[in-house]
């Protein structure tokens, strides 16, 4: 094993993960749990019961001030005007040329206060990007050190977390949040997630981390809750067809190409990247993200080349086995005119083209 060039960052739960026997890996500069009991077991726990993830490597950026909303609206693609206090929204931070700086969750706390959840390895870049665009009466604050973020996901997530809070969790609608108390500590409780299951993401001060982590595992024990790592987080989000920065989206990919046109509100007013996106909408995209499943033997994985009729045509953005569907699935970029359902493609697996076919996403959708 090679030694990392820079010391890895650690969350407040790092020693807890170690003590509980998690297998740790370098994830974008953070030493994080890859798995506890095993990716397949953890994945199944989230689909059938509940799983608990430490996602404190994610960053938080807070925007305060009379024009906090105007700044948030100017730097993001979705419409801030549509947000009510207590509501969250998936959105994009773009460059002028329309490529992604990051994909983010915007939480509206009040007219003068927005709370952004951003990707771990992008947080400094995002902060600089937003602060650099700040021509408003607003302040931007990189607040990641003030929060531990846990994700409790799965059909029994609500029952688990409800034991630890007086807040009526059933009353929190999807993509809404409440500032309440969890296991005795002030916590932001959001009904959001990255698994395709019902569940919650909670944000609270790091000093409570180990106590709340243990309290959630205790509360969920009767339902079969499992501590989960980033391995299961990735297979779960892949089945749910959710984008991962650095894979489906990055600086040269636009929301329209990534199938995220629904987070772009061109008519909302000026925002960074708007002109480029308007142009692209008029001229039509030339490549598009689409789902596929392997029909031949093999697993198409991240960055593998995609062939159409024996010639290079695109690449796999994310691919791997789907534990729930027992198939090998993935997402890939194809020329827009070929990105249609039922298109036969080949994934180049270790120099061998292996048959696959495009299929609709999400690959997995929960029953209710």
């Amino acid at each position, binding site marked *: *094993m090679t030694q990392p060039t820079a010391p890895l960052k650690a969350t407040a739960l790092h020693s807890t993960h170690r003590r509980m026997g998690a297998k740790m890996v370098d994830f974008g500069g953070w030493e994080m749990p*890859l798995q506890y009991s*095993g*990716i397949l*077991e953890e994945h199944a726990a989230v689909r059938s019961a509940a799983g608990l993830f430490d996602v404190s490597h994610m960053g938080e950026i807070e925007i305060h001030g009379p024009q906090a909303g105007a700044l948030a609206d100017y730097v993001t693609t979705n419409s801030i005007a549509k947000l009510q206090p207590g509501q969250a929204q998936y959105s994009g931070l773009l460059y002028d040329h329309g490529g992604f700086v990051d994909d983010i969750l915007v939480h509206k706390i009040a007219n003068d206060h927005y709370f952004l959840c951003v990707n771990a390895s992008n947080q400094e870049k995002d902060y600089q990007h937003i602060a650099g665009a700040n021509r408003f009466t607003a302040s931007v604050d990189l607040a990641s050190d003030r929060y531990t973020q846990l994700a409790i996901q799965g059909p029994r997530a609500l029952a688990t977390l409800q034991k630890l809070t007086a807040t009526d969790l059933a009353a929190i609608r999807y993509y809404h949040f409440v500032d309440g108390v969890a296991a005795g500590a002030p916590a932001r409780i959001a009904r959001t997630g990255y698994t395709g299951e019902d569940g919650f993401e909670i944000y609270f001060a790091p000093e409570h981390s180990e106590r709340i982590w243990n309290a959630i595992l205790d509360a969920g024990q009767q339902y079969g809750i499992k501590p989960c790592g980033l391995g299961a987080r990735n297979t779960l989000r892949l089945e749910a067809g959710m984008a991962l920065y650095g894979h489906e989206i990055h600086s040269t990919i636009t929301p329209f190409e990534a199938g995220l046109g629904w987070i772009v509100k061109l008519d909302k007013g000026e925002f960074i990247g708007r002109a480029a996106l308007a142009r692209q909408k008029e001229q039509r995209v030339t490549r598009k993200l689409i789902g596929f499943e392997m029909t031949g033997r093999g*697993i198409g994985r991240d960055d593998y080349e995609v062939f159409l009729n024996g010639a290079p045509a695109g690449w796999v953005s994310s691919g*791997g*086995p789907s534990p729930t569907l027992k198939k090998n699935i993935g997402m890939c970029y194809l020329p827009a005119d070929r990105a249609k359902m039922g298109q036969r493609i080949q994934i180049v697996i270790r120099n061998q083209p292996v048959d696959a076919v495009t299929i609709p996403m999400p690959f997995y959708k929960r029953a209710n």
Partner: protein
Amino acid sequence: MYPGDLHYTKQHEWVRLSGDVGVVGITDYAQKELGDIVYVDLPHVGAKVEQAKVMGSVESVKAVSDIYSPVSGEVTEINEALATAPEKLNESPHGDGWMVKIRLSAPAEIPGLLSAADYEKYVAEEEAGH
């Protein structure tokens, strides 16, 4: 942990001799490092394999890894059960999770492989290096 009747490689494969045929698999350390194994690609019966050359691959949920043959020879049998039950590699790496049988063409390679004690020491060093 590591059976004394097996010969080991630093690439984390093992071979168990029975006459001039060696049964080959991956070690417990290898399966733990890989995590849940979901797919195994083995050579065909009759294929010629060479020591320390790639003879197949195993895929976990996370990644694909090459399997290097611990010995040279000809593949006489493959473990067909792994096609539908690749998890045997995780559950019983030194037993039911065997991968191929190879008729040795160069038995002199065997003394160059690691004993259980030496392999265990090697793995301990690998783990300390993490």
